[in-house]
Each structure stands twice: as C-alpha cells, then as structure tokens.
C-alpha cells in the first residue's frame, strides 16, 4: 500500500513527487512513457513567465508569480539551467495601446514586480531586431527561460534519490475507490502485464488525460481539451537574434506567437494554438508551420527561418474553466487533482509542487524526513571547465575526452552520466534530453549510431531493443539480409 500514488511524471507530477519526498511516506509515480518528461512537459515554450497574463485571483496568477519567485533558489538547489532574460509584450501601431496598459495593471495586481512600458526608442536599443511596426512594449524583467527537460528530470531524480519509486512504461487503465484509498489498475506498455497499485491517496497529474482519471472517481466532472502548439527551433547561429522573450499583445487576429532565445542558445518560435480532438496528435502541420513565420515577423524582423533545425508540436491541457484545477476532488477523499495545467504550468510547477505536497501532508499527517537530500547535481558539462580542469577530468575518466555529438560537442562521459544516474536514459531521446547529444543542427544524423553503441554496451541492451523514445520506436529492425 502506497501512501501516495502520483499519476504522471511530467513537470507537475515530478515537482509534486520531489516536494512530497521531504516527508516520511511511501510514494510512487506511475508514468505511461518510457521516461520522465514525455508529454506536455517536453514540448512547450520553455518560459518562466513573469505572471502578468492570468486573471487576478486565479490559481494561474497566484502560482505563476510564486513559482517564478522560487526559481532562483530552485535552479541553484537542483542545478537547472535558468536565466532571467526578461520578457517583452509588443504592441504594434495597429493595435490598441490600452490593451498593453491593461496587461500592466493586471500584472501589478498579480504582484509581478518592476513592470513598465517601454517606448520605441528604448525598445529598439534593447532589441535591435524588434519589428518595425512595434511602437511600445510591456517589459517584465522577472520573465525567464529554463530547460524544461532538465527541470523535470531534476525534480524526478531528486525525488528518486529521496525514495520515490518511479514506474515507467506503466499505463493507468482504471482507478476506483477502495476500502482505504484507491485501487489503480495498470498495464505495462511493453510486456502488456497487468499490475495493481493500492494507494491511500492519488495525485492526478496526468496532463491531457487528467479529466479521464478525475471522472473515474468523481461526479464533479472536468473536461480537458488538447490544445496543440507548433514550434520551430532555430540553429544556434540565430540564437542571439533577440535576447529577451518577445510576446505579442493578443489581438483579434489571435494570441500571437513568441520569439525567444533558449537557455542552450537556440532561438525558439511558437506556438500556434489549435484545439484538437486527438490527445495524441503531436504532429506538425504545413498550415501551422507556415503561420509561425508569418505571425512571428510582426514582432521580430529578419527572422532567419532558413535556419530552422527542427519543428515540433506539444499539447496543452486546457480545462473548460480556464484555470488550473488543483485540490482534493469534493466527493473523492484523498484524490487530489493537479489538472488543467496549461501555460503557465511550467512556471507554476514549483508552486504547484509546494501546494499539493502541503495538501497531502495535511491529509496523511506526514512528518518530515530527517535525511532528505535537497541538492541535486546535473550532468557535468566539461565545456564549462578550464582546460586544466578538463584535462584532469579526462585523466580520471577518458570518456570525457571522446566527443560523440559533434554539433553540441557532447562527450561520451556526459552520455555515460545520463545513462547511469537515477532514472537514467534508456533511449536516444532520453540521452538527447539529458545531454543535448543529437539536439544540434544535424539532428542526430552523426551521433545516433554512436550513441546506440554506448547504450548497447552500458545499459546493456540489444541493438534491436534500442528505441527513439520507448516502446515501438525501435531504430533498427534486423540485421543485413535478415529482415
């Protein structure tokens, strides 16, 4: 019997798991994908929003601002790449300046610090590539950028180190109330084997499927729509095209798209916003990709869209009530929702983790764990070291002298670390999200056979079993002349 079963190992579930791992409790996380960060958390804008966007008084507003405040300490504690690069919401000459002022007012009510409106001159000095039609912008210095993979993995690894058990490749098929707590039926996505989990409390952090699970145990139905967002990621050569995160003031033409540098030095353009029926529809579309460059050029000029290295789509979990649904379901004691976590979900994750952990602590009267380890070290990046330090490292472990990914200059040592750390990588995408090997301009053309050799040797696993990102995504299908 688990004290807490968390469904979903995205950033929300992982943050909750980590915050709960402070307490003496038997906790598990059940995740359908082969790795943490396999759903909405892997495909989003990678932004820590300042918090001026959500309606004052909403959970979104409160948790976003709180989450943003927590990021500096968290990034240090969990060794996550995070940068407060500041954000700008642009207003063009055809748009109503009043909208921008309203946003400023909303932000002040939400408690966002240091907001102000910049006029064209100051703006152009700050961002030389700002669109010619932009007349002013709302500046939020607390806006930031983060690596969502690292943030989620840092939370999950730290939870794991503090005793939380992760069940990957495990798909929840039903949840029902039991005499005490809940019975959770699951199927292993690879072997098909059924396994039943019993838990006193359940935390529902299942992203676009959170409505399904809530509705299994509660008559207070929620309804989540998958809202697709398409993105283009540009080469590092384009990474300094802007230095702030550039949003557009929403207009009758739509919400607009953002242009932002990433913490790793690329440029990200997106997202579109289209509601889709299919909650697995993470495909990009010609219309979506065309719309991106068209719309982005309204706020940023000379965007080098020829430098796109990949495009992708993510699904945001939009709840009909337009706010996060967090808390115990009114008619299902011990069933706690963290549902409808769309933007600003990443920014709010630290605060959601804190809030839900506090809730569960109260329900189960948990006491603190004396040996909780708060700090987590990320994968060592040799490129951050001096040549002397680097050579000392290579003498200790020659794998740090062997470059595997030439675009991002990732060494074998980093890949070994990714494989052997808690919740280590078992797939090419797992290695990629942890180390960036394969995330560069050649998009893994060069390093994937080399990374496969390392996985084969180190996990160890057979070449045929190596996947891109889990069950069914195998890279090779047989040997020559035998398929």
């Amino acid at each position, binding site marked *: 019997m688990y004290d807490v079963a968390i469904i979903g190992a995205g950033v929300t579930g992982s943050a909750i798991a980590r915050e709960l791992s402070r307490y003496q409790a038997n906790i598990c996380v059940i995740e359908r994908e082969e790795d943490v960060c396999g759903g909405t958390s892997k495909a989003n804008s990678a932004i820590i929003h300042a918090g001026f966007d959500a309606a004052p008084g909403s959970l979104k507003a409160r948790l976003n601002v709180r989450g943003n405040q927590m990021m500096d300490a968290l990034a240090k504690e969990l060794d996550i790449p995070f940068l407060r690069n500041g954000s700008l919401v642009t207003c063009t000459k055809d748009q109503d300046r009043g909208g921008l002022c309203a946003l400023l007012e909303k932000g002040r009510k939400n408690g966002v610090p240091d907001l102000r409106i910049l006029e064209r001159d100051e703006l152009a000095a700050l961002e030389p590539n700002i669109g010619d039609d932009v007349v002013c912008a709302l500046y939020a210095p607390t806006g930031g950028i983060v690596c969502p993979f690292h943030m989620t993995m840092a939370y999950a690894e730290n939870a794991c180190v503090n005793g939380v058990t992760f069940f990957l490749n495990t798909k929840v098929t039903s949840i029902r109330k039991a005499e005490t707590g809940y019975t959770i039926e699951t199927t292993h996505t690879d072997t098909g084997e059924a396994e039943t989990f019993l838990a006193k409390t359940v935390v529902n952090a299942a992203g676009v499927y959170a409505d399904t699970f809530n509705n299994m145990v509660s008559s207070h139905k929620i309804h989540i729509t998958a809202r697709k967002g398409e993105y283009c990621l540009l080469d590092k050569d384009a990474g300094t095209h802007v230095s702030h995160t550039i949003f557009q003031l929403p207009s009758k033409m739509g919400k607009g798209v953002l242009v932002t540098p990433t913490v790793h030095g690329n440029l990200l353009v997106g997202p579109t916003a289209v509601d889709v029926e299919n909650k697995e529809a993470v495909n990009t579309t010609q219309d979506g990709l065309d719309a991106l460059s068209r719309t982005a050029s309204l706020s940023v000029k000379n965007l080098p869209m020829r430098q796109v290295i*990949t495009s992708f789509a993510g699904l945001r979990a939009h709840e009909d009530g337009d706010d996060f649904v967090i808390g115990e379901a009114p008619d299902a004691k011990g069933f706690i929702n963290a549902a409808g976590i769309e933007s600003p979900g990443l920014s709010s994750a630290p605060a959601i983790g804190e809030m839900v952990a506090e809730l569960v602590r109260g329900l189960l009267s948990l006491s603190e764990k004396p040996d909780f380890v708060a700090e987590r070290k990320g994968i060592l990046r040799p490129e951050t070291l001096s040549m002397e330090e680097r050579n000392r490292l290579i003498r200790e472990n020659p794998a740090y*002298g062997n470059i595997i990914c030439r675009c991002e200059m990732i060494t074998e040592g980093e890949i070994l670390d990714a494989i052997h750390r808690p919740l280590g990588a078992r797939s090419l995408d797992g290695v990629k999200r942890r180390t960036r090997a394969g995330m560069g301009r*050649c*998009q893994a053309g060069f390093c994937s056979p080399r990374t496969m050799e390392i996985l084969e040797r180190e996990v160890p696993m057979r070449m045929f079993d190596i996947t891109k990102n889990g069950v069914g995504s195998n890279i090779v299908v*047989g040997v020559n*002349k035998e398929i």
Partner: protein
Amino acid sequence: MKQYDLVIVGGGPAGLAAAVSAKDSGIDSILIIERDRELGGILNQCIHNGFGLHTFKEELTGPEYASRFIDQVMERGIAYKLNTMVMDISPEKKVTAMNREDGMFEIDAKAVILAMGCRERSRGALNIPGYRPAGIYSAGTAQRLVNMEGYMPGREVVILGSGDIGLIMARRMTLEGAKVKVVAELMPYSGGLKRNIVQCLDDFGIPLKLSHTVVDIEGKERVEAVTIAEVGADRRPIPGTEERYTCDTLLLSCGLIPENELSKSAGVSINPITSGPVVNDSLETSIPGIFACGNVLHVHDLVDYVSQEASSAGKNAAAYIKNGAPADAKTVEIHPVDGVRYTVPKYIRPSEMDDNLTVRFRVGDVYKNCCIATYFDDALISRRKRPVMAPGEMEQVILSKAKLSEYPDLSKITIRIEEGE
C-alpha cells in the same frame, strides 16, 4: 604547446590527398586529425563501386579508393591522430583538439588545411510536417548502420531526395532485403548522377517521382505511412495530388551542407551559395595560411575531383609554409552569372596562379545544348558546348595564366551559361 608546420583537419579523401601532396612538396611536419576510428572518412561507408575512374582508371569501392590514399600516407610516414576532435581553430592558426589519451591539447600550426567534409540536411531543416517517430533517417545515417554496423533500419522504405546517397541507398536497402517503394524528388530533375538512376532505381523497378515531396508523416512511435504530393513550379504541394505509401522508414537525401563551424569560429569568410569558405586560386581562405578543399569547400559530385583539389591545397599550403604569404598581388574576382551558381575559387591572382587553373562550379538548372562562356571583362575568351548540364553535376573551366597575362588591366572574369552553339 605542440608545433606542426601543417595541421590537416579531417582524414577523409580531401585530408589524405592534401597530406600526401604537402609531403611531396617538401613539408615533413604534418599532422592529420581525424575524429573517426579510421582514416578514410565517409568513403568507408560508401561500399558501392564507381570511385576512382579518373584517378586510378579503374572502378573501386569507397574503402578501396580510401585505402590507396591511406597507403600513400603510411608510406610517407605522415603523422595522424584518430578518434580526435578538433574543438577550435583560432585566426592565428592555433588548433585545439581533444581525445581520450591526450586530453585537450593545443597545436601551433604554420598552415591549416580545412578538410572536414559535409553533413546531410536533416528532416528538421526541410520542415516536413507530420509526426516525429523513429524510422526517419538521413540516407547517410542509414548507410552507416547498414554498411558499417550491419543493421537494417527498416523493411519498407520511401526515399525523399534523389541525391546520389539516396539512390545508392535505394539499391543497398533492396539488396539487403527491404522494399523501396518510391523515390520522391522535389525538383523537376534528379540531384544524382544518371548512372545511379539506371543501376540503382531502374534495375530494381523503383519508381522516381520528380516534382514530388513529402507532405505528411504518420505514426507516433515508428513511421507507419508517408504521403507524397506533386509540387508546382513554386515547389509547393498541389492539393489533390497526394499519394499515401505505407512504410516504416523514410530516408532523406536532400542535399549536403559543408561543415564549417570550425571555419566560422576561426573567422573565415563563407560564401552563402556554397556554404563553404571563399577561396583564391591557391584554395586559401580569407585568413592567410588557412586553406580548404573537398566537400567542406563545396559539395563535389566525384571523389576524384576532391582528390585533385586537395592535392592542390596541399601543394599550395606547402608553398605558403616555405615562402610565406606572397607580396600584395593583383586579385581578380570571378563573377558567376546566368545559370552559374558559384565558382571555386572566387578570386584569382594572375601573378601567383598555376599555369592552368581549374575553376569548378555548378549550374542552377538543367541546360540542354548550351555553352559555358568565359569573359575577361567584355572579351569572350572561351565558349565550350555542353549537350547537357544539370545541378547534380559539377562543371569546370580552365583558366590559363598565359592568356590572363594578355589582359594586364583585367578587372573581372565572368562565367555564364549561354544558349546555342
């Protein structure tokens, strides 16, 4: 810090030929730095025959062609380091490299030859919409898996792009037991050699669909189907022409990009058309003493031309090491116009150049019964008839030093495609 007269970055066909030629031109202190576990570069995975007709007058496989040059490097005792990545090249020709044994180390070089080759354009760069499952590989990645590791990346294959690697892989996959359903090519002509269409597609009944592209990829985990559609003159898909192919693999052979990240970090000027360094008649880049050859300079069609070009680069680097940079010499720019996309070299120095200089280039479209015309300012110097020219094949013009000396006031050279005899 270690010192070498000449550091050659890359031990593929360009680096090997450059090393041999530099050594034969009297330079003894040479180091080849190769990132892979063997010398030979991409030739090691190109197991088809057809290499070396110009150079060796016989048809060799890629590894055989490479071994001829590797033997020459060994015979001359030229030093090389394997499994070693060059991390940086400074404008002062300080080369920083790294491997497991030596760690990170710096080399002071008098001259550097860039011979890093090229990489393939990825799915992301092509911006193909659809899902992102396993089963989408660049043709070269599939080639490495099959030919070097012995693993098949798929059973039922659609290929986008009719570059030579794509055509070659259509045959390779077929021979190893896969079914290649179609090769789609965005352009109205193939990007590969004609002989490869005959012996890699026609021999096996694989259809080639010109003016077609991939408009959708299905399958969340592994590719399940690919939809291709015809494109119009604007290269945009024509609605209603979609055809869906069930398959588990999509191979991409959509162009090669010279790999110039190191060149850029050194500050070398890059030609936006070739994505390779701008060079003069000695194949010297905008930084004196840094030379470039092979596919890092511009993508070649035949390795024989890579070897020839690299051989010149080696000889020229040797001259630079021995004599230093020549005193300011008059430089003339070659202007590629009317169908000529670029030229390598872009600049020539009539006083410094060889007696005969080969200028290589590619054309931007298919031309039938046209001429390659060369002008010194407004004077027509040569006009050579070409029954067929296509973007997939390199063309050349030979400039003669003697002829140039007749034009002391020359301000520009123009190479263009002209119609008629």
